[in-house]
């Protein structure tokens, strides 16, 4: 592949947004038939670079060379004419239209196809690649995996030469991921180039030929995936050598701290998920990991546990046999509960407020007659900062000036230093660099060792296996069986995430 002309070359692409440089002098070559990974942490500039290639936004300087000719891609239609297709992280589909209608909308006007002809072609293309699709189905009835198929088929139908996939696996179960990889390998064998954006190293290792790594907007290097180890790739991404896998001791608790009994919840949010007959026991001295693809009821379950959503069944939640279903989040904290929400700014912390004020958000320390104990608050904020090694100017710094990982450490620290007896944490290390992730995981383990009951809700299976003592999964608002992490395989959890479990067994 080396001797041929690259299908796509990027030359010194620079793109600035106010307050950040998304891409700085990025240079990249993609060969025909190559599966090329673009690696980088959240905010490294991957998505911006792809949007530039696809014509969604424009570079401030630099050039794009397509099959040996410099091109000016003004709009996605220009990109599609060249043969570039893109599958976005957030799908761009019309839910009320059918599969065929959605594809028709993306077709160029120059060679209009009737909907029946198009339907035949959809069936032809989708079966050829092993991604069956029914052209007449309405999109809102499709599962997330099927929607992604539709997006890919929409690109394939137009004879793509370069397919860009932005974090395609983040919404898929492990089994669906395997299927997707088969499709991508077939495409690559036919000569289609693929740009695969990800921050999951194992997937890159399994699928890709080459990998280019972006860090803070700059291309730090590219490497042949075959010769590079996962650890090398990781250190290229974060810029420091960190051990990726950390083994923690597994223990099983005995006494129940928090229990959920036959919880049903019907959401009024049209995009929400109903929870069906959920029963869980969260035990002292144990970490329960709840896996699941995003949007299967995690948000609802978290908010019900925290008290942000009030439920009708006031008896469904108890902590040490006391009903807490009717209490608000602040009252539940007095029972020793504590939460780390999925959103940092705008839920776990107030952006414009100082760290001291954010420390006060969930810990009403030493206030007499409603008057603030300013000294105590400052002391508490500084305790968090030193104990959890939060990098910041001082405790008066606004939360918005902290990086995501540092703010997450601050929030986790705020909750853990209050010595909760039950901690509910959603995505505790999402988008956090490796060093901070390790620190966060260790503090959660330590909390468990001190006898607290911990629930970790996450989409990251690797992490869940790493820290959980028992595991289960959420699918369409239902909960799978709960098994000790040592007795369950990643494949079995994958099946749970896809809804393959016996509810009788789960309820038992």
């Amino acid at each position, binding site marked *: 592949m080396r001797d041929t002309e690259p299908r796509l070359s990027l030359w010194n692409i620079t793109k*600035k947004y106010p*307050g*950040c440089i998304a891409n700085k002098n990025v240079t990249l070559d993609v060969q025909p038939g190559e599966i090329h990974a673009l690696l980088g942490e959240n905010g490294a500039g991957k998505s911006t670079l792809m949007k530039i290639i696809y014509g969604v936004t424009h570079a401030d300087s630099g050039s794009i060379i397509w099959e040996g000719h410099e091109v000016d891609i003004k709009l996605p239609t220009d990109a599609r004419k060249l043969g570039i297709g893109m599958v976005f992280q957030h799908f761009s589909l019309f839910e009320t239209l059918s599969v065929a209608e959605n594809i028709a909308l993306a077709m160029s006007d120059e060679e209009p196809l009737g909907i029946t002809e198009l339907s035949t072609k959809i069936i032809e293309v989708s079966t050829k690649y092993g991604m069956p699709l029914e052209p007449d189905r309405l999109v809102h009835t499709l599962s997330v995996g099927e929607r992604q198929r539709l997006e890919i088929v929409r690109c394939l139908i137009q004879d793509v030469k370069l397919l860009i996939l932005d974090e395609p696996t983040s919404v898929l179960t492990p089994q669906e991921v395997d299927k997707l990889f088969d499709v991508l390998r077939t495409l690559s064998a036919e000569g289609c180039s693929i740009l695969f954006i990800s921050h999951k190293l194992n997937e890159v290792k399994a699928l890709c030929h080459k990998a280019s790594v972006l860090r*803070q907007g700059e291309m730090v290097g590219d490497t042949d995936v075959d010769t590079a180890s996962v650890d090398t790739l990781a250190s290229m991404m974060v810029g420091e050598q960190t051990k990726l896998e950390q083994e923690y001791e597994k223990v099983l608790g005995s006494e129940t701290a928090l229990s959920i009994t036959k919880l049903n919840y019907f959401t009024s949010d049209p995009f929400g998920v109903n929870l069906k007959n959920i029963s869980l026991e969260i035990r002292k001295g144990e970490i329960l990991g709840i896996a699941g693809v995003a949007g299967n009821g995690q948000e609802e379950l978290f908010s019900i546990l925290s008290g*942000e959503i009030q439920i009708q069944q006031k008896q469904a939640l108890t902590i040490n046999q006391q009903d807490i279903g009717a209490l608000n989040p602040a009252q539940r904290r007095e029972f020793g509960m504590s939460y780390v929400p999925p*959103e940092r700014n*705008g839920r*776990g912390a107030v952006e414009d*407020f100082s760290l001291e004020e954010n420390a006060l958000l969930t810990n009403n320390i030493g206030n007499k007659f409603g008057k603030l104990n300013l000294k105590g608050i400052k002391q508490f904020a500084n305790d968090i900062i030193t104990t959890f090694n939060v990098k910041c100017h001082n405790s008066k710094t606004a939360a918005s000036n902290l990086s995501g990982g540092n703010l997450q450490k601050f929030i986790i620290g705020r909750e853990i230093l209050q010595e909760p007896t039950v901690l509910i944490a959603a995505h505790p290390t999402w988008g956090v660099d490796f060093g901070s992730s390790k620190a966060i995981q260790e503090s959660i383990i330590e909390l468990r060792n001190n006898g607290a009951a911990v629930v970790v809700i996450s989409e990251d299976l690797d992490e869940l296996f790493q820290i959980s003592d028992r595991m289960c999964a959420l699918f369409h608002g239902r909960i799978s069986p709960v098994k000790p992490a040592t007795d369950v395989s990643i494949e079995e959890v994958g099946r749970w995430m896809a809804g393959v479990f016996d509810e009788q067994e789960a309820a038992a």
Partner: protein
Amino acid sequence: MNFKIEKRAEASELMRWLSPFIAIGATLVITTLFFLALNKSPLEVFYNFFIAPVQDLYGVSELAVKVAPLMLIAAGLLICYKANIWNIGAEGQFIFGGLIGGWAGLQFLDVNSPWVLVPVMLAGVVAGAAWAGIAAFLKTVFNTNEILTTIMLNYVALNLLNFAVHGPLRDPAGFNFPESAMFNSSAAMPIIWQDTRMHLGIIIAVIACIGVWFILSRMHLGFRIRVRGADEHAARFAGFNAKAITWFCLLISGALAGLAGVIEVTGPIGQLTPSISPGYGYAAIIVAFLGRLHPIGIIFSATLMGLLYLGGELVQMFLGLPMALTSLFQGLLLLFILAGDLLITHRFVPKWKKPKADEVPNALAEGAK
């Protein structure tokens, strides 16, 4: 020309402090052009507006009379605005407080005890709070937008006042003028400067500002109010009761406006008339913003706004310019303050212009260290 508005990387702290002064400067420039067009000497107008009113001690005392209600109302509005509750109804709360307080005052026309003051003032406070309470009820129960309900209630209060002074509360000995009887002086705030109209209200207003400052920056209640205003999700996550905060803010703000109303009616005005407020409730909104939504800032901005009212009267008397000039000044001030607020956090960029190449963002620079 095609411009887009984009967020600045960092808002300038200096500009945050300077912007009220820039707004005042810009207002002076625009009004200068305006007076030149009217063939009036701008210097003479400004002299009459800003200097002549406070040239003697009597002027200063009159200024205090105007500043007291503005400061009281603005202190209450500040609490609402910090919680992101947009109470535009201080005018109505002021009028209703004045009306009910006035009605209470009329019950004690023949009583000369200093204790009369207590029920009269209390009536005004409760009435103002109740009027704001209607908006709080509608918001917490039906999720009604408080901007709309409070504005509408302003007109309801004004019409109630008109009805009262034309009907049930009209002075039987008043030759059918739409006015109530004159109040007994014991229903009015005590005069604190002999031979002037300056009354205790100004002291109460300053105390209210300090109290509001204390609540907002030293009490957990104030913290809850600020979190509710800055971030509703964070407030819910923290477990702060949004409805209770809404009620508290609107009731306090209504109570202070109502107090300002009754003080004004029983004191400087002395009777109920169809026009007991020269728009204090609206001007106080400008006071709150010009004072940077800070209690101490309000003390200064209320003084400036009071001066505008006083100056407006003088300019009308001596230069024959319309009283509406005061509104013109107020409107321009508000416009420039809001424009300034936008430009502190955002900037205009021509659509074709690309970002400057040498702007190294702070986040990256810090990350590199």
